[in-house]
């Protein structure tokens, strides 16, 4: 058992534990903070997969932006007052569905049985080259998507009384 496998199992436990906490926690704020724990473990997994840039982006976007936005909205909607509503009548069906999906995916993965064990590293330079040559058009479209989402968010969240 080599070191990277030990690190992988540690990160997996943190990641899955945090994820189970997110979907089980009764407190909304705890769920948001546990999501941060899980996502930072995913960032560690990206490092294990030699994707340094993605690990950095993961910390910046999820740790710095998304969790903060979620916490702001939790504060603004006073969602803690709705603690009791975590009881959903279809939770049993949800467990069965989630378990079924996992079994299906795991069976497909094991049947496919990929045997690759060699990881390759992709440098920042190659990634940037690819992003601005082969993927230049989708990259520009992504910026347009962000702009539209920004304007849409402002329009939706704006007070109507101002008009």
């Amino acid at each position, binding site marked *: 058992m080599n070191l990277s496998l030990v690190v992988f199992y540690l990160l997996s436990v943190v990641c899955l534990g945090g994820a189970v906490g997110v979907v089980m926690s009764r407190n909304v704020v705890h769920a948001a903070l546990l999501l941060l724990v899980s996502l930072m473990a995913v960032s560690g997994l990206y490092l294990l997969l030699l994707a340094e840039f993605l690990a950095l*982006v993961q910390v910046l976007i999820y740790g710095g932006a998304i969790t903060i936005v979620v916490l702001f*909205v939790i504060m603004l909607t006073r969602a803690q007052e709705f603690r009791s509503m975590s009881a959903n009548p279809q939770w049993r069906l949800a467990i069965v569905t989630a378990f079924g999906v996992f079994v299906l995916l795991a069976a497909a993965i094991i049947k496919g049985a990929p045997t690759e064990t060699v990881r390759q590293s992709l440098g920042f330079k190659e990634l940037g080259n690819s992003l601005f040559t082969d993927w230049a058009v989708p990259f520009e479209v992504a910026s347009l998507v962000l702009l539209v989402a920004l304007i849409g968010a402002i329009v939706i969240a704006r007070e109507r009384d101002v008009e």
Partner: protein
Amino acid sequence: MSLIHFQILSAALFSIGIYGVLARRNAVLILLALELMLNAVNINLIAFAAYGELAQAATGQVIAIFVITVAAAEVGLAMAIILRLFRDRSSVDVYDVDVMKW
């Protein structure tokens, strides 16, 4: 450590996300579970990028970047919708917004 480890982890994370989306009533918590599912997809993409051919490695990582971009846009929009929902209905319970339910 091989590709299959990451694939199984990704499948487990995705299933947990599915449970969260189906079993929660708070719109914010449904969104958090959705983020878990998006991250499961990203782990898969980057694992295939790392273990596949080097010529294709950039493709997997670039698509993962796009997934993160769209996830950020989605969170911004969803939070605006949840704020509007809370202002109009004083609730973030998805069971209160079943007007369009057949």
